[in-house]
């Protein structure tokens, strides 16, 4: 049996760090208009962007006329500045980017005034960013099964990786999963390559050695997946915390039932069952000050007073059996002084649930 490990600091901090080889298309929303012209902007198309985008289209000139086909507009996808200016309005579809198209329907009176503005979004409920939001209900979903499907992670600089987590996935036992690392975004002969053992629904893999690279790629070949796509709930690349001492023998687990129950006066019960939640209690005793400091660092990492966020983390009770792990939330960090520089801390975790 190995020591317990805490996996809590994901080096993938933004969805812009992720690039996937296949992504199920999203949709383009309707438009919200500000302005007094009578024309209607009609967004359309299948959104293919890797991250959700907020589009703005604004009439920038009516010098050639105020009708559809005469006035021009500028547009932005919200990534900085205007993407294009002086685009002639049209009743036919005009392609902006990422599969997003717009056309205009003429109205009564002047179609446009300078400054007429429309706001709409390109959204994807299954984009790569869903892998790092720590919401188990949200999943990345590919469009198709590739040979392989790839997920490329690009850090700002070379960073040390010791653990990989693939959580809430739909990969089958026939899947081949390989993690690669390199100094460049080139994968024909990467400097690091390690095969990941499959496990149902959740995979927690500790690298054979701490490895530092800027570019990482997960290659998944799962041709026999009957879903026709790969799906991943959470993706983690980073380090882990292992305390100098393991928890005491005699830990406890509880599995609580989430259900509604009614009971008649005769004691006849009927239930509406929803889910079960696991509760874990571990006593870490006689820890040195350094371990308490590490646990406080964990707490500082998962809590943000400025952002108002409180994040779950993965708890691995036995590093020799990493897949028997859970995404959990901690209730508190009780620290009791035992003697000199030794402390006891009984920890309780509650499993983070999914509803799909």
């Amino acid at each position, binding site marked *: 049996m190995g020591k317990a490990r805490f996996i809590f600091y994901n080096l993938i901090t933004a969805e812009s760090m992720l690039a996937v080889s296949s992504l199920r298309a999203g949709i383009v*929303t309707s438009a919200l208009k500000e302005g007094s012209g009578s024309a209607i902007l009609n967004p359309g198309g299948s959104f293919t962007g890797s991250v959700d985008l907020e589009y703005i289209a604004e009439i920038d000139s009516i010098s050639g006329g105020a009708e559809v086909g005469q006035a021009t507009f500028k547009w932005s996808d919200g990534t900085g500045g205007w993407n294009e200016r002086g685009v002639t309005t049209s009743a036919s579809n005009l392609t902006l980017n990422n599969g997003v198209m717009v056309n205009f329907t003429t109205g009564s009176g002047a179609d446009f005034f300078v400054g007429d503005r429309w706001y709409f979004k390109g*959204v994807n409920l299954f984009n790569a960013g869903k892998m790092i939001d720590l919401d188990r209900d949200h999943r990345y979903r590919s469009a198709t099964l590739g040979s392989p499907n790839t997920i490329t992670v690009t850090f700002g600089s070379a960073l040390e990786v010791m653990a990989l987590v693939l959580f809430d996935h739909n990969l089958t036992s026939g899947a081949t999963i390989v993690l690669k690392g390199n100094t460049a975004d080139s994968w024909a002969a990467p400097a690091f390559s390690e095969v990941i053992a499959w496990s149902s629904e959740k995979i927690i893999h500790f690298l054979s050695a701490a490895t530092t690279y800027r570019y990482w790629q997960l290659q998944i070949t799962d041709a026999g997946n009957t879903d026709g796509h790969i799906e991943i709930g959470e993706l983690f690349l980073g380090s882990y915390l292992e305390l100098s001492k393991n928890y005491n023998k005699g830990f406890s687990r509880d599995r609580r039932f989430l259900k509604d129950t009614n009971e008649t006066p005769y004691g006849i019960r009927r239930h509406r069952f929803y889910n079960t939640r696991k509760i874990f209690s571990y006593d870490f005793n006689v820890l040195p000050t350094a371990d308490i400091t590490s646990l406080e660092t964990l707490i500082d990492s998962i809590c943000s007073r400025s952002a108002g966020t409180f994040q779950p983390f993965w708890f691995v009770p036995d590093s020799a059996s990493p897949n028997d792990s859970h995404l959990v939330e901690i209730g508190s960090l009780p620290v009791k002084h035992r003697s000199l520089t030794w402390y006891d801390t009984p920890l309780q975790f509650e499993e983070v649930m999914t509803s799909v």
Partner: protein
Amino acid sequence: MRGEVPIPYLLILTHLGYRAYAEKEPSNVFDAAAAIADGTFLADGTITAGGSSVGVIDKGARVLGFPAFERTIQPVKDDVLTALGGKQLQHISISMDNADRYFSRIIPGEPFLGRALNIYVGFEADPQNEHLSVFRGIITELSLMPVMTIEADER
């Protein structure tokens, strides 16, 4: 999928599109791709356009509790003929999870007040046009507290 329990869910139609919320994450017909003309289906009459999906711009397990519905079709003060054409207009109050201020961030750019709110009950694997509509109304009031309360009147 048979044998599963149907879920109640609500659709809010904002200026940008439909948002679907339930006590659990809505799935299956709520997956947006089903609404896209990507060649998966042919216009051969076998599928009703728009009937097999919702095409939502957002979905999530955000509903903390649905209200009890009150529906009276025969007010006691009316005579029989009047009662047949009369019904009690419903008013509902729904509690939504806003502990992470999710809706507080959305609503300034995508107002909910005055927008349509529909409540359905249905199996997630069934086409949306087979779901039972139990309420159609307009959002008249909401509070952006950690538990967001949406009030809506039937229209």
